[in-house]
């Protein structure tokens, strides 16, 4: 059998190239392909997790918006710094005279700031006091009427004195303190009715 030299070269080249193709395929391409498949599956999992979290975040955001809309008055009330003169102006119609003392900061309660105000007033009938208690629940602040409450007859009038607890958010410490300072001088007595 006579094989030409050219054919021998061609055969050698073919074997060399084939070896390169096989080595490249098995040593590089196949492991990389496997890794690609694993990474793709892993990424899909990550996407699914992200979508779940994103959906949950959307649901939570909806709940939060709903809560904010439902309790807008309460949220605003906690955010509003207590202003003595404004309270007097809003509620003096229930009394013949209404006087609020300085705001005193009390110990924090349920993570909220609590301020105490001593109040002295004159009413001509207990009904005015009932109306005042109803109005306090609808006021711009969260105000709790606190014990002790004293009613003392003075001729045709009833002198009443009680303390009020004003609740505010912790972040309002500064603004409430400022309000306390600016309105400490505003204690005034006004007679109407």
């Amino acid at each position, binding site marked *: 059998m006579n094989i030409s030299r050219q054919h021998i070269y061609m055969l050698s080249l073919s074997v060399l190239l084939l070896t390169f193709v096989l080595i490249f395929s098995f040593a590089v391409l196949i492991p990389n392909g496997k890794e690609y498949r694993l990474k793709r599956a892993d990424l899909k999992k990550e996407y699914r997790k992200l979508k779940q979290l994103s959906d949950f975040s959307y649901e939570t955001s909806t709940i939060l918006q709903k809560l904010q809309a439902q309790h807008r008055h309460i949220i605003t009330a906690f955010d509003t710094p207590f202003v003595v003169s404004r309270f007097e102006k809003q509620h003096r119609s229930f009394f013949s005279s209404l006087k609020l003392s300085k705001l005193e900061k009390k110990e924090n309660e349920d993570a909220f700031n609590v301020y105490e105000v001593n109040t002295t007033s004159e009413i001509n009938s207990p009904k005015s006091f009932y109306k005042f208690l109803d109005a306090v629940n609808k006021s711009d602040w969260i105000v709790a009427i606190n*014990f002790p409450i004293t009613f003392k*007859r003075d001729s045709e009038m009833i002198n009443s004195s009680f303390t009020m607890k004003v609740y505010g958010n912790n972040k309002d410490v500064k603004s409430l303190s400022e309000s306390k300072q600016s309105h400490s001088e505003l204690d005034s007595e006004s007679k109407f009715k």
Partner: protein
Amino acid sequence: MKYSYINPQKKTLFTPELKILLTFFSITIFMLVSTYSFLLFKDYNFTQTKIDIEQKYSELNITLSQMDEQIEHIDAQYLLSQKVYTQNSVLKESIANLFDLVPERITLSEAKLLKNGLVLYGITPNKDIYNFMLQAPLRSIFHRTYSSFYPLENGWFSFVSTNYIDEESNDEY
């Protein structure tokens, strides 16, 4: 002088067989390199996407925890406000009940509402009216009731009624 009947042809390195061989291997190697490049690109792309996803994940987690805090805070605000509103309403009812409790013949001069008690100052025409018409209902409400009388010049009595509720049943008042 000619030794052959055919014309001599130029010998070339790229014979048709070699051309076929080279074409075949060129295409094969091109496909292999393209696949490898695709895999490298995808690997880079996956790494970048994973970093993005992780970033979004942590951002969402932060947003979620902030929203949870806000919800918790609003719930706490709502509970506290309801507690305060209920307390004010109960107080209103308590004061109304107190004034309804006092009969017309007895005149109150002072009433002190304490956290766990009630102190009343007033005048009564006689002790019996006080005992039957005021002390009896007070006794049914409070656990401990103390009364003291001071005679007045017109024959009436000035009285001080001190009433307490024991700690565990404060809510009734």
